[in-house]
């Protein structure tokens, strides 16, 4: 039996959108050099399942329509059907290159909704985790961007560093990728002296390793010429398109939520917001590179300042009790039962909470009607918005440079598709 779905591209709406959008009298095609190229979704340089429909004039791109949704798993619908605690593992799968940062962002959003104040030690641990996640994500971004334009060595080197970082995550959280480390009102386990030592060793080593990669790329003529002046977006356009994170700072706009809307312990720390003026792929690469050095600075300060104390807020009706107490005390057992089965019951209301993630501004908009589950949970994912600035950045670019632009935007489809 034939079903009624048609894989015929020439009739699909995305094709029509591309043709309608960019057809005018001037671009009528007397030479017959007009061509439509389908890029992705199965393409190594799209970093996942991003599909672009490109309209070419010879080798130049005159139009582009991005298509997302190949990894759509309906996380917003799922969130409406599970308690706030149950949702934490799902945040790992949003931006799967920095799951720790997502965990922290989500916990912060729920805490803002429920009015929970997290003790300072947990705040410091969260800051450390966010910054380590930033380093790991930027290492990956730098390596894969270099690979996209032909420098394979850098990817292997940054992967090696990221591996060390994941060893630390394994000891700290118990998992390498899907960490699920945050809890509403704190973090899952304490930061032990062993982990502190491992982080210190890593931090001592990392700047030299980044510098090695820099030596391979910064004065590498092939890399620089493939990225310089490609995919330019100026500051005003970047703001209008809603770019955030390193992509916006690569256009010379110093917007960083860590400084502008402080959360965790960022106000107590000393760090710079990196901006570069170029607005092209090379500038975005430099922003990521320099941000790694800043993250090293931040983690060092956190490790110096981190106080002793509790890692869970003292709010038994909202925060999961420690396991050993659940097994030995009546009160904690009741709370555990209630929290696991019925949720944390925050007041009715709506909050928007955003943090500066490695990819940009990750926001959670939570509508609560009370009770254990969110009424509506919206994820504002940076990659989703960044991808939709591609048509602007790709206009007039050669078709072989598309990979250099996508690589510099550093999209993660897990997050863009939700």
């Amino acid at each position, binding site marked *: *039996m*034939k*079903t*009624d*779905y048609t894989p015929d591209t020439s009739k*699909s*709406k*995305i094709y029509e*959108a591309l043709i*309608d*959008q960019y057809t005018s009298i001037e671009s009528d095609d007397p030479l017959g050099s007009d061509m439509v190229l389908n890029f992705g979704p199965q393409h190594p340089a799209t970093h996942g399942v991003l599909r672009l429909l490109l309209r070419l004039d010879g080798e130049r791109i005159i139009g582009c329509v991005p298509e*997302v*949704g190949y990894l*759509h798993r*309906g996380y*917003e*619908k*799922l969130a409406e*059907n599970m308690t706030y605690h149950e949702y934490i593992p799902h945040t790992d799968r949003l931006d799967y290159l920095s799951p720790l940062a997502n965990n922290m962002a989500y916990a912060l959003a729920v805490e*803002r*909704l429920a*009015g929970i104040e997290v003790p300072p030690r947990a705040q410091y641990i969260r800051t450390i985790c966010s910054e380590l996640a930033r380093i790991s994500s930027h290492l990956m971004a730098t390596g894969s961007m270099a690979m996209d334009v032909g420098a394979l060595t850098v990817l292997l080197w940054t992967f090696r560093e990221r591996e060390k970082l994941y060893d630390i995550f394994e000891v700290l959280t118990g998992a390498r990728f899907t960490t699920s480390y945050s809890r509403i009102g704190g973090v899952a386990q304490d930061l032990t002296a062993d982990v502190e030592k491992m982080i210190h060793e890593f931090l001592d080593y990392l700047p030299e390793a980044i510098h090695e990669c820099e030596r391979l790329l910064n004065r590498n003529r092939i890399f620089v010429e493939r990225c310089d002046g490609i995919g330019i977006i100026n500051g005003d*356009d970047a*703001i*209008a*398109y*809603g770019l955030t994170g390193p992509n916006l700072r690569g256009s010379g*706009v110093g*917007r960083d939520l860590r400084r*502008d*809307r402080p959360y965790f312990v960022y106000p107590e720390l000393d760090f710079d917001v990196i901006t570069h003026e170029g607005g092209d792929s090379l500038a975005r690469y430099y922003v990521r590179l320099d941000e790694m050095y800043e993250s090293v600075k931040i983690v060092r300060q956190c490790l110096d300042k981190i106080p002793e104390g509790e890692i869970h807020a003292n709010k038994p009706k909202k925060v999961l009790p420690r396991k050993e107490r659940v097994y030995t005390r009546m009160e904690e057992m009741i709370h555990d039962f*209630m929290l696991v089965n*019925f*949720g944390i*019951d925050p007041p*009715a*209301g*709506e*909050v*928007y909470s*955003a943090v500066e993630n490695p990819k940009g*501004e990750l*926001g959670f*908009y939570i*509508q609560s*009607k*009370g*009770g*254990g*589950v969110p*009424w*509506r949970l*919206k994820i*504002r994912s940076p990659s*989703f*918005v960044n991808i*939709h600035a591609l048509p*602007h950045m790709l206009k007039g670019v050669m078709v072989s440079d598309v990979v250099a632009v996508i690589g510099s935007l550093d999209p993660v489809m897990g997050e863009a*598709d*939700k």
Partner: protein
Amino acid sequence: MIAQRAVEKLREQFNDVVHEVIEFREQLLVRIETSSIREVCQFLRDDEELKFDMAIDVLGADRLVPVDNPTMHGYVNDPFDRELRSKQEHIPADERFEVIYVLYSNMNNEYIRLKVRVAEEGQRVPSVVAVWKSADCAEREVYDMFGIEFEGHPDLRRIYMPEYFEHYPLRKDFPLMGIPGSLPLPDKQ
């Protein structure tokens, strides 16, 4: 707080557009008359003092409480239910959906959130794509998930779901497990 100043200015500038101002956790949520959302957004962006130059997000929400859908809320016998859900508010059909705009001002480093209410059928929300380009993909997402249409959007297509999909998955009356047969699979060879 610049968001409060924005509300004052809106009240001065426009007649009867601000329906409601809700403050929760030090965040301001302003309910606006649906038909004038575009002018309000234009004003908030262009005003020298406010300058909300980024539309961080545009999102939809459904207010419908389905009575006979057990999959909707698995926590029917919720002990927190108290009187909250037992006297369920009746949602009139002409105010069923909400569209929420999260705006950010780079000059003042502050957020403001606007909200409009939309009828279940027939009402179109003025599009703000002409004000912020970032609203383009966000409004398409709202259309895809809730079926809310935007007046003046240049390219209102589905964004996540396939083109031939007929339902709106984030509506509260759409079941969690999906509707059987709504996503046809290719034939087995």
